[in-house]
């Protein structure tokens, strides 16, 4: 921190725009606050254009500054730009009530305009002007219109109006200031000095110019006078301001007088919970107590255990003390309504799972009496931390909207709104827009942007740029990358959060401005969840989870358990079933929640989960944090007994040798969870609670403002000083960095592990229902329908194709033909047919139920549109009526009434036409399969690769299934369709491929060198043969790629497969390029 310089003059900067004045301000709020503090400025007024989006961040920065006794104040203000020609005003509410009027004013303006705009008039302001300290910001040209406006403003406001004057080093500055001074004099609006700040230091001018270009969509060469002439719009010290305004006595001093009159601070927005209706004669806490104890009885029908009794009593007392009962009642009400009225599956996640009261209320599903689960309520609510509780609840993803509508209906739109998500500049977008602004060609910016993989990453490394054939040292490239680097992490726009609601007792628009979202009838507030948390407002997260939808759907198909229990909730599933763990240990987890990814699948056989807590670890360990912190291998070694379980200890003079044992006991001395890292900081590195909290906060916003490094030294030095191995300390901190915003706290991992277990149980015992419900909940998860179906077939489920007579819209279960199989047969639904509409399917199902028998019935009386019929025919859904794919298509096309009639309209007056029989060529099997893939993305007839098995055998390619019988290090080739391509950010330059043939799948690892040498092929091939070396370890088989052969052309051969003798394939230039299978690429 810069030493504060002493100043004889005091000055408050009352006109500072942050980068939340999008594409105008060129500094983060915290940069302005910290910068102004260093200059010895008494107060900084944040006024973004018609927005309060940045004020909380400034307030947080101010709060977190060390208290030196003369700490800067961050004033909450706003620059109002008007649509009716009124000069811009800088407005500072003088108290809480005036602040409420300001937010209401902004809400009025934003609701009136489109998303991200605000339309205000002078009349609007007058309605909300009481208590606002108002500075008039003069326009460039001081014409008569401005004089008239100023007269009107000062006349109608009667006091508390000032005229803001800045010295921007423009032409005739002093003349302008003199004119302003005399205008101020005649209009009773005293002149006050500001610097109209756009950035904290002059070195941001280049970035600000580039922002101007992005805003004006022009290049820097074209921007001309739209740019600022100089770099003067930065923060200036009181002494400098006094010098600049030496001829205008009082102008600088006045700024401090105004600042001192601002009696409002965001800290005053202490949350007032919405009052929940309680039965007459009871208080909120009494009602909550009743509900909690009733819930305890429901959770423990055999009698509430002593442990629970104690926990509930303790928690309720604390809830009462901190005055949170209304909050719990609110969440309880939402969950109860969803579960009991709407019959929607839901489950709490996050730190709320630490609460026994939440468990009893049915909000969360983590049973605190389980061994291994000594949850700490203090992680959820802490008296010291003084933070409001944060409860996140997942709902079935397809039905979350109903819950959201309930929330709106219950609290009204003036008391409930969705919080914002700040969309930040990521490297690709930053380099692309900066490059464009600097006049680089599209090709160069695209190449530069393409060197960044993934949406995170820390800029564009020179080596990557060089690879694309661009010289990173060329001045124009260097300019672009340097400025793009500065732009990283800037807010770009506000978007609505997926489901975070803020609820208030008084009108919400008196706390924060509410604006329109892009989606119709949606509104969201200007602050994001971090802002809400910092201000201690209450938030409920109504989140969507696809797996809940799938589980709910599978429950509907399940037969009752042996004891007669009908499964309607996750809690009904039998616990700790050894068969489920057996299955997971085999990495047989396609479709299972969370543990179905490639990385998770290769972890399962190594971790060998045998009990519930193992699943908790499994979920948490395959995350960036533990991987970057290099904690995975030590954990696995210790777990399998290859390494002694030791707890790092400080030197004896600094503390008890077992101080970490309590923190790390459950994870064999290796920190895996977010809160373990926090506890490490407190216990081992002697962080204060506040510091640990700051560390946690900067972890969450690490990407955004990069302040995490300030904690680094304290953490590592703190541990090293106390006698810990420096290496251990560094790894711990690396892990904290890796957590970033993806860290998993233990309670969250437990909530997820519950779903892992539940979905694994359904898969193990009812693969038929499991597959059907997953297919009916698409898109979700990691795999495509083809893999889910294949997996079901491998587990003995008979799968039947979509059929016009048998299929519903959804996939259904039918009695199986084979009496020996324990499973029912899975009938694919019409939803598998690409392009087929749900609405049409449902109408069709109704008509079919009324009776359709012949082909003619289906064509003429099914209510299906021409397009719908064609889609069904092309998907081979008429076979049960005796029509081949081509015959069906020929028939439905021929039955059409009017050629060229609206394709999607149902054919009403349709009639059959008698016509001569046309003999169509018979379709070959490979072509059938290709058509199946084209229409439904999967084929039950054969696997595409099976047609090429002979070719592959000639190339000495082994089937994927044969890999498991081969020894480690064997050189081998496998071939298959490329299902998944992954290039995770944590694995430097490594690409993972998943291949599939008719026998199974193979996992391919492609190291950086092999990838770079075969980049095009690896990224584009649909059908690939990989030659390489086998790597077998702990039941995990990888093929390390060395060479590749692209067989993608074979697939198009399949589409053009000969079925009419004598036909010549079209010349290459006339062939349509299309892919039979589309891989899922993650990068």
């Amino acid at each position, binding site marked *: 921190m810069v030493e504060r310089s002493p100043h004889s003059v005091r000055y408050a900067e009352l006109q500072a725009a942050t980068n939340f004045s999008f594409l105008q301000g060129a500094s983060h709020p915290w940069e302005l606050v910290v910068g102004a503090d260093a200059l010895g400025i008494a107060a900084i007024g944040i006024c973004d254009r018609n927005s309060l989006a940045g004020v909380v961040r400034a307030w947080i920065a101010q709060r977190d500054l060390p208290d030196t006794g003369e700490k800067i104040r961050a004033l909450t203000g706003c620059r109002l730009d008007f649509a009716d020609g009124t000069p811009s005003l800088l407005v500072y509410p003088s108290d809480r009530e005036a602040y409420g009027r300001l937010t209401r004013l902004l809400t009025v303006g934003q609701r009136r305009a489109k998303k991200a705009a605000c339309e205000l008039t002078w009349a609007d302001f007058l309605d909300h002007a009481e208590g606002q300290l108002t500075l008039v910001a003069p326009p460039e040209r001081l014409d008569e219109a401005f004089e008239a406006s100023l007269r009107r403003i000062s006349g109608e406001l009667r006091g508390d109006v000032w005229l803001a004057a800045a010295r921007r080093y423009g032409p005739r500055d002093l003349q302008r200031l003199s004119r302003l001074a005399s205008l101020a004099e005649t209009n009773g609006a005293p002149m006050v000095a500001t610097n109209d700040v756009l950035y904290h230091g002059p070195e941001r001018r280049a970035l600000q110019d580039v922002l101007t270009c992005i805003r004006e969509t022009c290049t820097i060469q074209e921007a001309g006078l739209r740019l600022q002439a100089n770099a003067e719009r930065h923060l200036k010290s009181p002494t400098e301001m006094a010098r600049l305004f030496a001829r205008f006595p009082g102008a600088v001093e006045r700024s401090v007088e105004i600042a001192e009159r601002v009696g409002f601070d965001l800290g005053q927005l202490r949350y007032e919970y919405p009052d929940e209706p309680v039965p007459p004669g009871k208080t909120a806490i009494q009602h909550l107590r009743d509900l909690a104890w009733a819930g305890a009885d429901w959770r423990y029908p055999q009698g509430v255990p002593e442990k629970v009794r104690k926990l509930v009593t303790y928690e309720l007392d604390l809830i009462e003390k901190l005055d949170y009962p209304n909050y719990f009642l609110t969440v309880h009400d939402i969950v109860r309504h969803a579960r009991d009225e709407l019959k929607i599956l839901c489950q709490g996640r996050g730190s709320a799972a630490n609460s026994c009261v939440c468990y009893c209320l049915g909000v969360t599903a983590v049973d605190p009496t389980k061994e291994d689960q000594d949850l700490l309520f203090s992680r959820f609510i802490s008296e010291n931390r003084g933070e409001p509780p944060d409860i996140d609840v997942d709902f079935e993803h397809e039905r979350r909207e109903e819950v959201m509508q309930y929330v709106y209906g219950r609290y009204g739109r003036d008391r409930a709104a969705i919080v914002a998500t700040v969309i930040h500049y990521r490297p690709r977008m930053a380099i692309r827009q900066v490059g464009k602004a600097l006049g680089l060609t599209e090709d160069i910016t695209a190449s530069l942007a393409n060197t960044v993989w993934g949406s995170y990453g820390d800029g564009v490394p020179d080596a990557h740029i060089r690879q694309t054939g661009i010289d990173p040292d060329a001045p124009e490239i260097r300019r672009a990358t340097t400025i793009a680097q500065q732009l990283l992490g800037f807010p770009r726009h506000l978007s609505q959060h997926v489901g975070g609601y803020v609820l208030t007792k008084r009108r919400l628009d008196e706390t924060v401005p509410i604006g329109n979202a892009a989606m119709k009838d949606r509104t969201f507030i200007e602050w994001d969840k971090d802002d809400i948390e910092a201000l201690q407002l209450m938030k409920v997260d109504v989140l969507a989870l696809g797996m809940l939808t799938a589980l709910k759907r599978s429950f509907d198909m399940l037969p009752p358990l042996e004891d007669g229990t009908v499964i309607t909730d996750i809690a009904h599933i039998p616990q700790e079933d050894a068969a489920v763990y057996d299955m997971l240990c085999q990495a047989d987890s396609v479709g299972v929640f969370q543990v179905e990814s490639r990385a998770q699948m290769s972890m399962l056989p190594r971790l060998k989960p045998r009990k519930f807590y193992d699943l908790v670890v499994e979920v948490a360990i395959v995350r960036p944090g533990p991987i970057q912190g290099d904690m995975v291998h030590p954990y696995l070694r210790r777990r399998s007994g290859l390494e002694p379980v030791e707890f790092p200890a400080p030197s004896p003079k600094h503390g008890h040798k077992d101080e970490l044992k309590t923190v790390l006991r459950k994870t064999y001395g290796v920190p895996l969870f977010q809160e373990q890292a926090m506890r490490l900081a407190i216990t081992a590195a002697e962080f204060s609670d506040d510091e640990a909290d700051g560390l946690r906060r900067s972890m969450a916003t690490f990407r955004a403002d990069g302040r995490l490094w300030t904690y680094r030294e304290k953490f590592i030095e703190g541990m090293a000083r106390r006698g810990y191995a420096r290496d251990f300390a560094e790894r711990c901190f690396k892990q904290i960095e890796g957590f970033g915003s993806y860290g998993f706290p233990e309670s969250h991992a437990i909530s997820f592990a519950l779903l892992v277990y539940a979905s694994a149980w359904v898969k193990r015992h009812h693969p038929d229902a499991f597959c059907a419900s997953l297919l009916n909940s698409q898109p979700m998860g990691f795999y495509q329908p083809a893999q889910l179906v294949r997996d079901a077939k491998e587990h003995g489920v008979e799968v039947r194709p979509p059929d016009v007579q048998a299929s519903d819209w959804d996939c259904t279960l039918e009695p199986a033909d084979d009496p020996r199989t324990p499973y029912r047969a899975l009938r694919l639904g019409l939803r598998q047919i690409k392009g087929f509409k749900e609405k049409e399917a449902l109408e069709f199902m109704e008509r079919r139920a009324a009776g359709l028998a012949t082909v003619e019935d289906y064509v003429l009386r099914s209510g299906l549109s021409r397009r719908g019929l064609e889609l069904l025919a092309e998907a081979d859904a008429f076979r049960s009526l005796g029509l081949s794919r081509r015959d069906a298509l020929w028939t439905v*096309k021929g039955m059409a009434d009017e050629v060229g009639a609206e394709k999607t309209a149902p054919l009403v007056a349709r009639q059959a036409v008698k016509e001569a029989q046309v003999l169509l060529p018979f379709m070959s099997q490979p072509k059938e399969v290709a058509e199946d893939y084209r229409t439904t993305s999967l084929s039950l007839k054969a696997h595409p690769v099976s047609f090429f098995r002979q070719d592959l055998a000639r190339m000495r390619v082994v089937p994927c299934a044969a890999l498991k019988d081969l020894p480690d290090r064997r050189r081998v080739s496998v071939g298959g369709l490329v299902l998944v391509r992954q290039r995770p950010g944590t694995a430097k330059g490594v690409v993972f491929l998943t291949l599939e043939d008719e026998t199974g799948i193979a996992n391919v690892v492609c190291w950086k060198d092999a990838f770079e040498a075969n980049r095009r092929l690896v990224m584009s091939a649909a059908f690939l043969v990989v030659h390489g070396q086998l790597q077998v370890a702990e039941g995990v088989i990888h093929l390390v790629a060395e060479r590749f052969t692209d067989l993608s052309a074979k697939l198009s051969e399949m589409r053009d497969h000969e079925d*009419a003798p004598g036909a010549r394939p079209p010349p290459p230039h006339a062939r349509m390029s299309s892919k039979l299978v589309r891989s899922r690429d993650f990068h």
Partner: protein
Amino acid sequence: MRAVRRLAAVSLEAARLGLHAGQKATDALALVPELVTAEAEPEADAAALTALADWCVRFSPAVAIDAPDGLFLDVTGVDHLWDGEAPMLSDFRRRLAANGLPFRCAIADTPGAAWALAHFAEDGTIAVPGEQAALLAPLPPAALRLATETWAQVERLGLRQVGQLMAIPRGPFARRFGRAALTRLDQALGREAEALTFRRPPNPWFARLAFAEPISAPEDMARVAFDVAARLCARLETEGQGARRFEVCFHRVDGQALPLAIGLSLPGRDPARIAKLFAPKLETVDPGFGIEVVTLAAQDVEPISGRQARLDHAREATVADGLAPLVDRLVNRLGEDRVWRAAPVESHVPELAAGRARPLAPASRTCPQARPWDAAAPRPTRLFRRPEPLEGVMALTPDDPPSQFRWRGQVHRVRRAEGPERIGEEWWKGGIDDVRTDHLRDYYRVEDEAGARFWLFRAGLYGDPAVPPKWWLHGLFG
């Protein structure tokens, strides 16, 4: 946000790497990072195709454009000039190949059949009259110029050859694939006529006068220049056009042609004015043994609204009849790049804030968005091309105006001053590492005791005692 960029066309090499038209540019670049792309210029492509069509007139007057990349030539009754279709086609191929153009071609009875053969059969196929059905039969349905959606459907039914389509009865065929498809089939087989839109050669703005007796006297030449101009201008007027450039050509009896050209700053068609502009140049024309023909061509023809002849002589002269002729005379006398007008260019840097524009061109033509100079930011009437160094400058730090300076050996004591106006460097013109916040100029408007006004600036800021900032004089106020 602009639309997704896609590849419009790929070279053979790129196609071999798996790239194809319609692919997203970003995908293509991810596959082939070293891919070189150029912006598609559909208009330029169309122009090139048009030019090729005009060139083809040497083979047949009836040429139709089949956008975006094809041409139809109706060679009915012209092939005998080459002794038949085969020699004609080979001459055609030879000439195209000599020009380095890649092509495929075919000759058939109908445009449809020729199109099909050129696209899908062996290059250079010539269909024997009446026997094209056999040649078309093995071609894929796409050869019938069907809509993409239609031929995909046709092929999906297993109908992969035109022959299979020909075998289907007309009723069922039309019901399934639409009447348009049937029309295409009929057109290819000659069962239905197809009208092509033939391109007629462009009509040049051209006039010609021939004389019974060769002329050579200068006054005769001036007169015929006027006559030929009057003839062309009459045509321009009837069509509401004017031209910016006229080229007269005197054809001597010995076969030599002597061209002269003049340009106008506004499109015009006044023969007297045009002749007047030619007049001073006529002396450079050596008539030799006499001139028998004079031609005049107009270029840069564009529409102008016809103006009524003036009825009211008292009206003020407009640019068109006052300044424009003067400018034209100056330009034609001095040369085009010597007559210009200062126009605003948007830049904060004073010496970059003015550019040269054509004297009478509307502002929109020179610099589309440039705003006029700001009257509130005074600039000297005379701005030095290079600022001149000042010496002995006395000024208070950090940024007070100078109280005294010496310029060209003379000391000026400042009586009044205004400033500074601070102008930063155009940082994007140098290396980003060289961008410094003290790279700036502080401009002052000062008046000395004699009342002379100067525009001077200090480059850089006071601060580093080792490198004191320098002072310069950049201009004088009138």
